[in-house]
């Protein structure tokens, strides 16, 4: 009991003579401070920013395009002119990797945003409204969790051969939102019972206003954390599919396709897939650090129980 008393009094601001907080450690400042104190989170943030920068600006810095063939320099290790070396057909690996990184980053981001948005909506409705609506929605969630997503996405890849990669985003989104929606639903259910929501109900405030004014802001932190962590998962999902040939299709390039192409000769020519692999791992790692950093910053007490 001592420890709980301590932490509640510690997070309450100091009381001055007027009985009020003397230094205004507002909540957002507190969160920001905690986040930036977390070395891993800051490292993650830097890496992600770097990855985005290099993926989108890098190609302008390099003299090569990702589809150009430099026939004079086939299968060359990294050098001054070809920073990451060249492939069997003379394509500059750096340009290729950056292109692949772009694709993977965008797809990861889009899938995470859409699927988190979807789960936030569905989860809060299910959690707040409850009853039959909730049961029905949760049954569908369970069903979608049973259907093997990887397998279905592989089958569905037939539909996006020759078409835009946006269809891949749609496909990945459809199978990604379920777990987060459970989390949001749980949160909505517990918020519904909170006194300030009850108070609003007894004041006669309509449901949609309650959701907008009270529910969503209080769930925002969890949703942001979930979205961040989902980015990592989405990137891994997309690269996996692309590796097998069922994700991003030629002539488009993703980190997954690059790894697939580069594996064959990788023992003797490691640069063919090493850079793509390293960028992949680093990006996902950095994103998880950020996600964990958010989690610790918003709610240091519960960090232990949810941190991965």
């Amino acid at each position, binding site marked *: 009991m001592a420890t709980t008393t301590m932490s509640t009094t510690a997070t309450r601001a100091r009381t001055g003579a007027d009985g009020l907080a003397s230094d205004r450690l507002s909540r957002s400042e507190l969160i920001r401070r905690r986040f930036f104190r977390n070395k891993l989170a800051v490292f993650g943030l830097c890496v992600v920013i770097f990855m985005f920068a290099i993926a989108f600006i890098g190609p302008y810095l390099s003299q090569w395009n990702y589809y150009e063939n430099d026939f004079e320099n086939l299968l060359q290790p990294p050098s001054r002119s070809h920073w990451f070396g060249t492939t069997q057909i003379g394509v500059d690996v750096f340009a290729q990797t950056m292109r692949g990184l772009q694709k993977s980053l965008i797809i990861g981001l889009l899938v995470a945003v859409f699927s988190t948005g979807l789960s936030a909506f569905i989860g809060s409705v299910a959690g707040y409204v409850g009853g039959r609506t909730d049961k029905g929605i949760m049954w569908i969630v369970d069903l979608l969790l049973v259907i*093997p997503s990887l*397998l*279905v996405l592989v089958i569905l890849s037939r539909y996006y051969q020759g078409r835009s990669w946006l269809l891949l985003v749609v496909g990945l989104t459809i199978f990604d939102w379920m777990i987060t929606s459970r989390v949001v639903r749980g949160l909505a259910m517990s918020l519904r019972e909170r006194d300030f929501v009850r108070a609003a109900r007894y004041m006669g405030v309509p449901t949609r206003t309650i959701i907008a004014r009270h529910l969503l802001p209080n769930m925002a932190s969890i949703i942001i954390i979930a979205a961040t962590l989902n980015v990592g998962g989405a990137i891994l999902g997309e690269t996996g599919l692309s590796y097998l040939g069922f994700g991003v299709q030629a002539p488009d390039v993703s980190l997954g396709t690059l790894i697939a192409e580069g*594996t064959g000769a990788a023992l003797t020519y490691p640069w063919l*897939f090493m850079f793509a692999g390293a960028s*992949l*791992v680093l990006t996902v790692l950095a994103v998880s650090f950020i996600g964990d950093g958010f989690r610790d910053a918003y709610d240091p007490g519960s960090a232990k*129980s949810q941190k*991965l």
Partner: protein
Amino acid sequence: MLGYILRRLLNTVVMVIIASTAGYFIASSALYPRGNYEAANPPIPKESIDAVLDRSNVNDETPLLERYGTWVSHVVRGDFGLDLDGNRINEEFGRRIWVSLRLLVIGSVVGATVGVLVGVVSAVRQYKLFDRSFSLGAYFLLSTPVFLLAILLKFGGIRFNDTIGTTFFFTQGEYSAGFEGSSFEFLVNRLQHLILPTLSIALGSIAFYSRYQRNSMLDVLSSDHLRTARAKGLTKRQSLFRHGLRVAISPMATFFAYGFGLLIAGAAFTETIYGWFGMGQWFITAVAKNDINSVTAVVTFTSVLVLVSGFLADVVLVVLDPRVRSR
């Protein structure tokens, strides 16, 4: 409690039906087996193509519902039909299922056990070297997709073999073809083929379980009833192992069961990379070959597996936690 189990069972059956039906419809819509033959040179007469397609009940000119009906009537008798070459899927299934299960079961058991152990030790030695290094390792492992891990292990194994001069790690298949020797030596050979693929699957699991177990242990460490145990006179370590462990481990049982489903996805990669002829690899080639029946068979199998493991998880939870029993 019996009623609860029966209700869960019923729910499970319904879900299997829906999942496999969905799989059938999606496969039938997305895959185009006729296309395999249409591009042939010299062209194959339409009647021949039709005959082949009819034999496997995948002729797109037959109405979908009719095909579905035929498929269901066979499936309820346990027959998943024929693939495009006229082979019985059940036979293929029978061969491959053991391959996959060997890989999956060993991988997941090793992964879960080692993972739980690492998690427990990490929590007890929180912030010390063991904890920090394994935590970092876990982060890396969790950021690495299974296929990349499998590839890296494969290369690592080949490099290792080169360094020591002989083949210690085998990276293709389940056992060396044409092997001659005693049954013990055969077993060893199999193990040598098994290590790397199993590691590919297990390492991810280890990372996952160690993190969750660590957090579960840390939660338990600060829990009230552990404090009571210490107030009775148990040392920190004693109270942790006698009182904390069981409570900390029970959530893992649930993870184990539900995580099984994820492993199956990982198996597809691992089997392809290491040349194991299991369900995952079969699935990939079947999709490439537009083989609707095989594809649907694998989807059904996977759904059943996921549901069964989920069901088992609930049963295990009931056994471990008396609070759930009285519900």
